[in-house]
Each structure stands twice: as structure tokens, then as C-alpha cells.
């Protein structure tokens, strides 16, 4: 009985190790649990600001939080999980019309009469060796009722 249980345990551990080793540390529910293991690195998230439906896109400057136009739009309004949008902004490399259409779909009917700016928020230490942190916001795209305007730098990349 004991031998059998131990044999099963070892077998699971071997399968566990093989799967996480060949899938970048994640094969749910097997994981090496790497969350927050990279300390001190710059981070990247997302933030959506609501602007008028007739908002005039001016420029693509990097801004501080007090310079952002409009108001924060809570993703709870559309039932979207922040992690999904933040990861999409961070990891996505395909900014094709199809992908943008997928993103517009998140906002559903809200896009009929609202305009949104989706920012990539980046946090880092102000200077090397400093404890002070800064957060900067890069506009990634504007979602307006009848159009999507992408930051041209994304297309260049």
C-alpha cells in the first residue's frame, strides 16, 4: 500500500517536472509558482480613460497620472478582468484589425456613445538605487464609436 502510494507520487512528480520544464513553468495545475519572483524590474499594466465620443486625438505623448484626459473607466462596468487587458497590452504583438476588433468587443455597447483611451502604464524606480518610483502612461490606442486609432509606434514595432 505504502509502496504503491509512493510510486504514484513519484510518477506524478516526474510528469509534473516534464510538463513544467517543457511549457515555461506552467501546465495547469502544475506550476513552479513564479509569481513576483522577478523583483525590482519595471512593470507594465493597463489603464482605460473615458473621453468624449467626439474626442480629438492630439498626440501620443507619455504622460503622468495627473495629465491624463477624461476619467478612469472601471473595467467592472464591462465585466472585464484587468489582468486580461493588462496582459494583452503587455504581451500582444499583433495589432491587426482582427485583434483590434476583439478588443473593441470587450467594450460592447459602451462604444456606441463613449470614447476611450487605453494606456500602457509602466512603473519603475525613478533612478538607479532610488526607493522612489514613477508611473508613466503611454497611450496605446483610442477607441471611438466609429473608429480605432492605434499609436503609430506600435505599427512600426
Amino acid at each position, binding site marked *: *500500500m*505504502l*509502496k*504503491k*502510494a*509512493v510510486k*504514484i*507520487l513519484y510518477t*506524478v512528480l516526474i510528469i509534473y517536472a516534464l510538463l513544467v520544464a517543457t*511549457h515555461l513553468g*506552467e*501546465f*495547469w*495545475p502544475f*506550476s*513552479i*509558482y*513564479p*509569481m*513576483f*519572483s*522577478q*523583483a*525590482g524590474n519595471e*512593470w507594465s*499594466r*493597463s*489603464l*482605460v480613460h473615458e473621453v468624449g465620443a467626439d474626442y480629438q486625438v492630439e498626440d501620443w505623448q507619455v504622460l503622468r497620472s495627473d495629465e491624463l484626459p477624461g476619467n*478612469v473607466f*472601471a*473595467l*467592472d*462596468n464591462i*465585466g*472585464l*478582468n*484587468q*489582468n*486580461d*487587458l*493588462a*496582459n*494583452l497590452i*503587455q*504581451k*500582444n504583438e499583433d495589432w491587426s484589425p*482582427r*485583434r483590434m*476588433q*476583439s478588443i473593441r*468587443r*470587450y467594450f460592447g455597447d459602451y462604444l456606441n456613445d463613449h470614447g476611450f483611451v487605453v494606456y500602457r502604464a509602466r*512603473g*519603475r*524606480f525613478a533612478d538607479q538605487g532610488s*526607493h*522612489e*518610483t514613477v*508611473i508613466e502612461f503611454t497611450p496605446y490606442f483610442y477607441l471611438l464609436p466609429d473608429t480605432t486609432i492605434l499609436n503609430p509606434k506600435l505599427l512600426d514595432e
Partner: protein
Amino acid sequence: MRFEGFFKHLFQFDREETRGGYLLIKLVEVVMAYQVFMYAWSWASYMPLLSEVILPLGLANYINVEFMFEPVFAYANAFVITVLVLIGIIGKWRYSYLVALLFFHLHYVSRYSQGEISHGSNLTAMVLLSFALAYAFFNDKSTQRKVAFGFVIFFTGMGYVSAGMSKLIGSGPVWSDGSHMYLWMGERSIDRLSQDGVFQFNLLQELMFEHWWLSTLILTFGLLVELSGFLLWFRKTRWIQATMLISMHVGIVLTMNIFFGPYIYILLIIGYPWDKLFNRLLDKKPHSELNTLIERRMYAA
């Protein structure tokens, strides 16, 4: 066999199963099932919002799971998982948990196909796997329960040690430098602001920003507690380690606004000798209907 003493201690085959012990493992099973249901249905309701796979995980690397974004498939899968887990609980089919885990995996890789790698549900699924293996490979009911509990304890402890090791490998001992927390608190402030529309740092967070040593102390505590996860494997240290881990999770809520509820609930159950308390309560009325029911279930073939 190597580590025989350790495994004997882990599985406790030489200890007679008590009514309290039976109740405890059933409680673990019921809580696990509840968590599976919660995930299955909440993910099903979220999936129709998605339209394409952005970062494939697990099986999604090999099959296109975009069909799961159709409400009918998302809800059908949640239904199948629910039924299979219910069959597992009542013990009607020994492989039901194993099959449920496969469908649960499909559910997870569909829901988390947008770039986020969530770890909130890993422990729940590892508990499901523990029961699945015990029921599939052992015939005797009492043995199944002891094996399942041993696996749950082992995988829970291993997960925390792995999390601690990942931090040491990823950043070294300087991981616990308090200024790192400032970056994470900033990151989480944007997450909460984006999700809820409002955010304000709490008193503890303000104090941590003010006092680097406090932030360092809290991170050091978290790292040491994770690295000590193996102490869950031993009966004498289990309750101490469970208390430390629960404290760490409360700390994560207060400092980073991340609530690992399912982990806390499972630790609350497996971390303490509730079986002794249950035995004492059951002994007060030895001829009660509950006692009879438990004994009938314990010795059922």
C-alpha cells in the same frame, strides 16, 4: 525504500481511521468541490467575452480552444465538470475526478488564454488531482482517504516551497529588499484603479512607503514562510506552518490587495487537527444519528 519514515508519516496507513478523521477528509473534499463549481461557472460566464486565444497555455498549445468562447460550449463544459465532481463525491464512479480534471484543464486554458497566468485555482485543482489519484488507484475506502489527504498535504507544501525557490532563483536573497514592494504596490494600485475605478493606499501601505525596514521585514517574513512550506508535511509543525501561511496570505491582502481565498480556506482545514475536535464532539453523543451515519459511510465497501 528511501524516505520510508517520511512517507509512513505522510500517509498514516498504520493509524486507525477515526470518525473525526473521516469528517475532516470529507470536509476537504466538499470544499474542493465547491471551489471547482465556483470556478467552473464563473469562468463559463466570462468566456463569451473573449474572441481569440492570445497566449495559449497547457492543452491550448495543441488544440484551438476558441470554440470554448461560444456560450453553449463554455456552459456545457461547466455542467460536465459539475456532474463529474458530484459523481465523485457520492462515490459512484472511481474515475470521475480524473476525467473532471481533464475538462477542468480545458476550462482553465480557455478562460486564461488572454495572457494572464492565474495561480488562484492551482491548489483547488491539485486537491482534485489528489482525490482523483486516490480513488482511481486504490480500492479500500479508508486507504483512498488516507492517500488523498497525504497527497493534498504533500502538494500544498511543495507548492509553497516552489514559490519561495522561484523567488530565490529569480532575484536571489535581495528579493526581500523593501523597495521592491514599492514597485509591486504601485503596480497593484493601477490594477485596482483600473478594475474598480477608485483606489487608495491603506495605512499599512502608507507606513511601508515611509519605512523601508518595515517593507523589508514583511517581504522577508513572506519569503521565509514560503520556503518553510515543507513543514506542512509533519503533524507536529503543520498547524504552526499553516498559521504562518495564512498570516502571509492576510499580509498579501493588506499590502498587495490580492486575496487567495481558496488557498486560505484549504489551509484552514488541512492545517489544524480538527479531527480531534470532531472526535470529542461526536463522543459526547455516541449513539447519535450522525455517529451512525458516519460509521456506516466509513465502513461502506
